[in-house]
């Protein structure tokens, strides 16, 4: 339902978005990841018709956003970064305004506002001016505004940024609930959020799309994916290390710590395949006294760092 083709956005000499192509279909929740200044917000602003692209096209529900921005905007809900809202309005009057613009009138409008107020739990603050609301409520006003018309396409820029854990949980549930029949794009810096709500993760770095896959696939790219963690007596360490290294499936062994009468090892799988069974069997066979053994999945944030930090080790950060 969303289709980007060779999307480019330049700000003067800076290529904020550098030839991004991708498509998002119904039922997908795509997480935009990337360092500060990667171009996530800029991409979203172009999709929503707020900014014109320098070149390339964006199609939403079959409409080209450059040619028919209003048609696109009718089918789209957008939560801008930081959830701006008219501070001197109340949530009630703000949502009333948005509902009117969205074409709702009379009783239908009331029903639609009531529903979204219910969903976003805004009832208690409906008549308080928005500028006096807490961050969590402000964010929910922004979400209510974006979801009010139950749009087929939903774009949310850092919807959980700065919220407490309960609010985050609430917002993620909300997104999951809404997502079933929509195409959703959310950007976030919280990587566990991607695993929690996204069916697909896209990493953007320096305006380029550098990774695209399910969260599981991305985690699979971790260098420590399927590595095995072993805890054992420090005395046995010097014997165990070469024995494990001798296994064919093993790519290397790192000593992580050696203190308090316990040593911790990480056995890295050579080609990312599961090796826990083989390593466990070896340990038993040699009679090492291990206190703990488990498989590491690798973490998204490690993959994220791997992908977005340049070859020379310097952080890619233009924010």
């Amino acid at each position, binding site marked *: 339902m969303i289709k980007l083709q060779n999307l480019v956005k330049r700000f003067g000499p800076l290529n904020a978005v550098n030839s991004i192509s991708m498509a998002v279909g119904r039922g997908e929740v795509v997480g935009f990841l990337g360092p500060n200044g990667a171009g996530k917000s800029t991409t979203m602003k172009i999709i929503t018709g*707020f900014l014109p692209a320098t070149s390339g096209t964006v199609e939403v529900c079959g409409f080209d956003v450059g040619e028919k921005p*209003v048609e696109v*905007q009718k089918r789209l809900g957008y939560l*801008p*970064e*930081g959830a*701006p809202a008219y501070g001197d*309005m109340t949530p009630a009057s703000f949502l009333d305004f948005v509902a009117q*613009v969205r074409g709702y009138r009379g009783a239908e409008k009331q029903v639609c506002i009531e529903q979204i107020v219910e969903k976003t739990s805004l009832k208690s603050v409906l008549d308080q001016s928005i500028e006096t609301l807490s961050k969590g409520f402000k964010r929910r006003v922004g979400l209510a505004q974006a979801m009010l018309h139950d749009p087929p396409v939903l774009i949310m820029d850092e919807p959980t940024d700065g919220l407490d854990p309960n609010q985050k949980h609430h917002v993620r549930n909300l997104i999951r609930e809404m997502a079933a029949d929509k195409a959703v794009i959310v950007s976030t810096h919280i990587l566990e959020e991607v695993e929690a709500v996204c069916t697909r993760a896209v990493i953007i770095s320096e305006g380029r799309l550098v990774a695209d896959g399910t969260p599981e696939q991305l985690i699979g790219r971790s260098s420590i994916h399927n590595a095995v963690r072993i805890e054992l007596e420090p005395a046995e360490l010097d014997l165990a290390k070469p024995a494990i290294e001798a296994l064919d499936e093993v790519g290397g062994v790192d000593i992580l710590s050696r203190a308090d009468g316990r040593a911790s090892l990480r056995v890295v799988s050579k080609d990312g395949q599961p090796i826990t069974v083989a390593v466990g069997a070896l340990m038993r066979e040699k009679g090492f006294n291990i206190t703990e053994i488990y498989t590491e999945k690798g973490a998204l944030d490690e993959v994220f760092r791997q992908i977005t930090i340049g070859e020379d080790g310097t952080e890619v950060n233009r924010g």
Partner: protein
Amino acid sequence: MGNVGIVAMRELRAYFATPIALVFIFIFLTLTGAFAFYVGGFFVRAQADLQAFFVYHPWLFLLLVPAIAMRLWAEERKTGTIEILMTLPISTTEAVLGKYFAAWAFCGIALSLTAPMWITVNVLGDPDNGVILASYVGSFVMAGAYLAIGSCLSALTKNQVIAFIMSATVCFLFTMSGAELVQDFVRTLAPEIVSQAIFQMSFLAHFESVTRGLIDLRDAVFFASLIAIWLFANVVIIDIKKGS
């Protein structure tokens, strides 16, 4: 109600959501009264008309209208709400017109609250109500012209103070160019045709003919095209500047 109306209603409500509207109206009424009675010599003139009242409107508007207009777009850009407004299914033109009409309606409300003056002159004497009506219309239209300038310039910046200073300056130029002092000065420097052209751009010249009860098609065309041009520029500026 179309999008323009919806945007205008939201904007108008926003004026009254804070004390700004009331403060503004209070200042406007106080100043119009003060100018008419003390500076304009409303009583001394002993004439049943509102000349003393209307003659100061261009100068009052010069300060007060930019104060209304300055927040129109500068605030929207500063707080980021422009990103909400411009991603709702509304065209830029509709947004510009909606906001403009709201501010204009607000001026209309302020102006209409001076009606007691009109009633007073009718109680005291027998004024030419046609002239007064024409003057009110002229004053309202002139406020609209100042507003179009203010709205457009407010889109150029995120800073309301800068927006105010810019539009007060430009409005000042459009007003002053008709003052005799300036006209005399220009005539000494430039050929008649140039000073005439500058004179023709002046709000004062067009407004004064209206307050004498002459509603000339040329004055109407002047204000209408001026408003249209500034609002068109406003739309263009929003489209260019909204993202930055």
